[in-house]
Each structure stands twice: as structure tokens, then as C-alpha cells.
């Protein structure tokens, strides 16, 4: 007879409604009080067979005990115990989906907190040549297998410094895509300083998705984002990004989004988001700076402030959503979509799976942030992937290989977090980011709360958000 145990779960309540989130399924159900009561009869460590389950529910005086036991099993709230054997999956080659081009290491700004700054031991190299770029585009298509759509990301340094290369790559990739009957998409992250009329037009015409790194109003932005002589970069970018947004909005280009690096203090988040949305950015996303330098790092108190500000902004987002309006706070949007899609993640991100980055010296790395770090080189354009290195990485990076995450309630959403962050803060790429566990857990739980509220007030809004992120809406049954 099969033995069952209570599935790891989080129960949360919103205005008299009870919800359950099943950790290893990423499934969210609304449940009635009698179901909650029944769940509580079991504890985490308990194992029971069907007979014992029935008896327990019956003894608690719950009516329809048979039906309820079936429900709990069918909905996997009680799950069969499966002894995990030592297995090794021989992973198929994962088709390449995204290749990040390190257009140049050079940058015309000298942001104090940048991981490319002089204190880091990252080798700086010359800009990528046309020949390398061509080879890299070929490599991306050759390894994309059945993927119909590939994405090229222009990254740096400041990629626009090497604008000629960007135009070359775009043209070449488009031609190649056409020939192969595939689609090439493009995205760029820029500091905004070099957005001339010509550049903006080019981005528009080629449907390039633009992310601008901007940290907020002038006094906040200029604190860390400066020219080498300490001059204000805010003043330099303001007219340019206004022009960019304006052009894209009037002509119907892709939404322009902002990426905010939160360094040292986080109290300004609401003010910053307000400022960026007023400038016309469709959305802004916030990420704490990745550094081990205490001069820029967010300390524990500041992390707490950031969490509170995230909650405040999520509440505001919800007020908009209730009325079917949109408030561009990227972090909550991404989290809600993740929850709605019920994604079960065994890896924190696509790095080293469908995503790699290529450097000017034709080397392949796990992702853009790890470029130049020899230990994480995964092959090169001439010889292809170093399959042993990739395999080793995938094995070590998998959630199963992180025992410290084994009991965590949000493990299938976080999966240990960013490798680059782990490398800097935990000194090991494949270690879990234990320094921000509490933060992540609370943030995800808040996301669940917002999810519950939204489901009650405007459930279809979650489908709209999913579609905004390129998913199909969640209606009725899948498949």
C-alpha cells in the first residue's frame, strides 16, 4: 500500500478566502475551511497509508471523510512518498535560445558600483570584431536546433560605443534568420548616454527592445552613475532618453523599460519609480547591486527597507490592477506571472541552459556577468561548447545539488538564486544565496498575498499580465 505524506505547502488567507500553495508543484488552489481543517490534522513528518488517513479524518469528526481524503490525494496535498534513487539524467543538448554579445568592455561611464570596475579581476579586452560577431551569430543559429526564435542581446560595457558592430550583427542575423525561416529578436541594455537620433531610429526600425540603466532622479542617479571625472550622467542622458521614449511611443515601438540598480540605500524606491514612469518608461525593475564592497552594498537594514518599499509598490500596483489599469513595477509583475504560470524551477535562471554569453575573444560563458572569468568559460566559437564543463555546471547548479535549499518553501521559485551573486557573496557560483533567503521568502510570500487578492478582485488581470510576458492565458485546462 502506498504511503502518503503531507506535501510542503504554504497556506495564506485573504478576506475570508483560504489559499494553498503547493511547493513542489507551484500549484495554487483556493480551499474551503473543512479542507484546511483536514490538512492541519497531518503534520509534516507524518507518513500514513490510505487506511490511516481515512481513520484520522473520520476520527476528527469530519463529514464526507472519504471524499475529502480522495480530494487531498487527487490534488496532491497528500502526496505519495517516493524514494529518490540515485539517478543521472543524460541531458539532451539544450537548444540555444539566447546569446549575449559582449559588444565591448569599454564604457564611457565609471559607475562606482559596477562589477566591471577596476577592482574586479575581470580581464578587459578589445571590442568584438566583425568577424567574431559573424561567427557568433552563426554559432547561435547552428545551435538553436528546433528553436524557431533566437534572441540576441547587446551588452557591454556600453554597447552603443560600438554601434557599427550592432548594426552589422542585426543585419547579418536578420538575413540569416530569413534564410533559415527563423526569427531573430534583439535587446539592448544601455546607459543612455549615446542615444543619438540615428541610434534611436535604428533601434526602432529593427524592433530592438531597449532597457536603460537609470537609478532614479538626478540626486540618486548621479550618486553612483558618473562619468570618469565625476560629472553628472543624469544631465547627459535625460534629453536622450526623453527623445527615445517619445519616438518609440509615437511610432509604436517596443515599450522602453528601466533597470534600477539599488545601492547603499533603498528608501527612494517609490519616488524613483514614480519619476521613471513619469519620464515615460513602461516599467522599471529594481535589483540590489551585486558587490562585496560595503560602500555600495545594501546592509541588513537597507534590505529590510527595500522589502517594505517593494510591498508598498506592490500594494499600489494592486490598486491599479483592481481597476484594470497598469502600474509598471516590474518586480511584482514578474513574480505574479511566475506564480500564475506555476513554473517549477530546477535552475534559478537560463544561464548555462538556453542562454550563454560570448566575449570578444570568442569564448563562451555562462552569462553576461561571468564574461572574462576563466573558471566559467564553457567553450569557444571554434570548438563549440566544452560539453564536460557544461555538464558539470548543470549538475552542480541544479536545485537537487543544493542541500541547503532542501526544506525551503520557495525552492522551486528561487532555486538558489543568481550564480553571479552567489559567486560574489557566497564565494561559490553554485552555492545557494543564503544571505538573502529570508528576504526572498518574504517577498515571494507577499507575492502570493497579492496573487490571492488579485484573484478575488480581477482574476483576468493575471492572464493579461501573462500575455504581456509572452505566455498564453491560463484558462480552463491545459493541453
Amino acid at each position, binding site marked *: 500500500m502506498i504511503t502518503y505524506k503531507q506535501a510542503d505547502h504554504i497556506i495564506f488567507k485573504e478576506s475570508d478566502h483560504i489559499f494553498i500553495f503547493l511547493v513542489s508543484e507551484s*500549484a495554487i*488552489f483556493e480551499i474551503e475551511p473543512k479542507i484546511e481543517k483536514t490538512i492541519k490534522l497531518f503534520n509534516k513528518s507524518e507518513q500514513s497509508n*490510505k487506511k490511516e488517513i481515512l481513520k484520522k479524518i473520520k476520527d476528527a469528526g469530519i463529514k464526507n471523510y472519504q471524499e475529502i481524503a480522495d480530494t487531498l490525494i487527487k490534488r496532491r496535498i497528500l502526496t505519495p512518498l*517516493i524514494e529518490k534513487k540515485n539517478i543521472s539524467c543524460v541531458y539532451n543538448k539544450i537548444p540555444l535560445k539566447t546569446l549575449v554579445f559582449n559588444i565591448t568592455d569599454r564604457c564611457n561611464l565609471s559607475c562606482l558600483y559596477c562589477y566591471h570596475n577596476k577592482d574586479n579581476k575581470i580581464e578587459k579586452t578589445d571590442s568584438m570584431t566583425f568577424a567574431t560577431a559573424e561567427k557568433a551569430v552563426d554559432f547561435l543559429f547552428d545551435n538553436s536546433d528546433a528553436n524557431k526564435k533566437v534572441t540576441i542581446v547587446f551588452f557591454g560595457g556600453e554597447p552603443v560605443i560600438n554601434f557599427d558592430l550592432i548594426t552589422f550583427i542585426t543585419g547579418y542575423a536578420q538575413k540569416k534568420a530569413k534564410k533559415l525561416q527563423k526569427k531573430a529578436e534583439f535587446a539592448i541594455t544601455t546607459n543612455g548616454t549615446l542615444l543619438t537620433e540615428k541610434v534611436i531610429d535604428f533601434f526602432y526600425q529593427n524592433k530592438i527592445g531597449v532597457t536603460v540603466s537609470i537609478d532614479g532622479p538626478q540626486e540618486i542617479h548621479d550618486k553612483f552613475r558618473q562619468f570618469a571625472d565625476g560629472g553628472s550622467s543624469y544631465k547627459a542622458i535625460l534629453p536622450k532618453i526623453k527623445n527615445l521614449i517619445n519616438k518609440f511611443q509615437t511610432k509604436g515601438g517596443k515599450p522602453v523599460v528601466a533597470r534600477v540598480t539599488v545601492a547603499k540605500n533603498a528608501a527612494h524606491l517609490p519616488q524613483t519609480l514614480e519619476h521613471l514612469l513619469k519620464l515615460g518608461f513602461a516599467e522599471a525593475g529594481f535589483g540590489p547591486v551585486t558587490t562585496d564592497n560595503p560602500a555600495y552594498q545594501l546592509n541588513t537594514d537597507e534590505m529590510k527597507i527595500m522589502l517594505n518599499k517593494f510591498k508598498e509598490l506592490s500594494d499600489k500596483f494592486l490598486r491599479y490592477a483592481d481597476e484594470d489599469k497598469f502600474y509598471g513595477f516590474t518586480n511584482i509583475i514578474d513574480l505574479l506571472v511566475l506564480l500564475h504560470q506555476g513554473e517549477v524551477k530546477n535552475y534559478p535562471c537560463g544561464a548555462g541552459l538556453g542562454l550563454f554569453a560570448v566575449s570578444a575573444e570568442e569564448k563562451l560563458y555562462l552569462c553576461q556577468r561571468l564574461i572574462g572569468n576563466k573558471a566559467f568559460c564553457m567553450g569557444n566559437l571554434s570548438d563549440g561548447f566544452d560539453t564536460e564543463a557544461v555538464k558539470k555546471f548543470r549538475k552542480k547548479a541544479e536545485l537537487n545539488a543544493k542541500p541547503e535549499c532542501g526544506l525551503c518553501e520557495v525552492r522551486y521559485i528561487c532555486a538558489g538564486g543568481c550564480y553571479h551573486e552567489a559567486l560574489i557573496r557566497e564565494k561559490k557560483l553554485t552555492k545557494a544565496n543564503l544571505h538573502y533567503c529570508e528576504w526572498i521568502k518574504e517577498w515571494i510570500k507577499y507575492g502570493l498575498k497579492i*496573487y490571492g487578492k488579485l484573484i478575488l478582485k480581477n482574476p483576468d488581470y493575471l492572464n493579461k499580465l501573462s500575455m504581456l510576458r509572452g505566455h498564453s492565458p491560463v484558462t480552463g485546462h*491545459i493541453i
Partner: protein
Amino acid sequence: MTDKKNKIKGVKALNKSAKQIEKTEEEVFGMADEDIITSMPIGCTTIFDTGWETNPRSTTPIGNCVSSARDFTSCSGPCWWPAQTPDNITNFPDFQNQCRAIEKDWRNLNFVIKK
């Protein structure tokens, strides 16, 4: 198959994953011994969508048919269907890990070897 048919009193599926469980359950319990439950549906394809080989579709499941997509996860255990997968009940519970959305990622599925 309607939404209603799968509804169990007291528990309502909200997100995609939950709806998938709701959908799965019907076949699991329709075809299997009541004690068996897996993380994936078991049992063979319930519909055979002929003609898919010559008519790849652009929607999910991308490039193959509904029934064949189901086969990748359905055919474990004592099943005759040729697209049989490794036994994901006891020995290879992680077999489909590289497929977050089977209807899109089924190409990532491979064989497994036991060490």
C-alpha cells in the same frame, strides 16, 4: 472536457500548474489503480489526432499533436505505446525536469541511464 467535470468540491484550481493537476487527475483515476498517483499523468493517449505529422501546428504543443505530447509523459509503466518514457514513478522521478512546460519543451526529453 469541461471545467466543471474536473471540479472537486472544496478545492478550486487557480494557476496553470493547479489546473494541470485538476486535468491530470481524471485520467490517473480513470485508468489506474486508485493507489497510484504520479507527478505526471499515466495511461495511454486518449485521443489520436491523426494527420499531425504532416500538419505541424504553431500553437502548443509546438510541432506535434496533443496526443503525442501527452505520450511523452503519459506512457510509463505497463504501457504499449512506442513513445514510452522511463518509469517516472519510482526510479526516475526527475526525468522530465528539463521540461518546464512539456507542451513546449518536449524536445528536451532524452533517455536516462541508471548508475
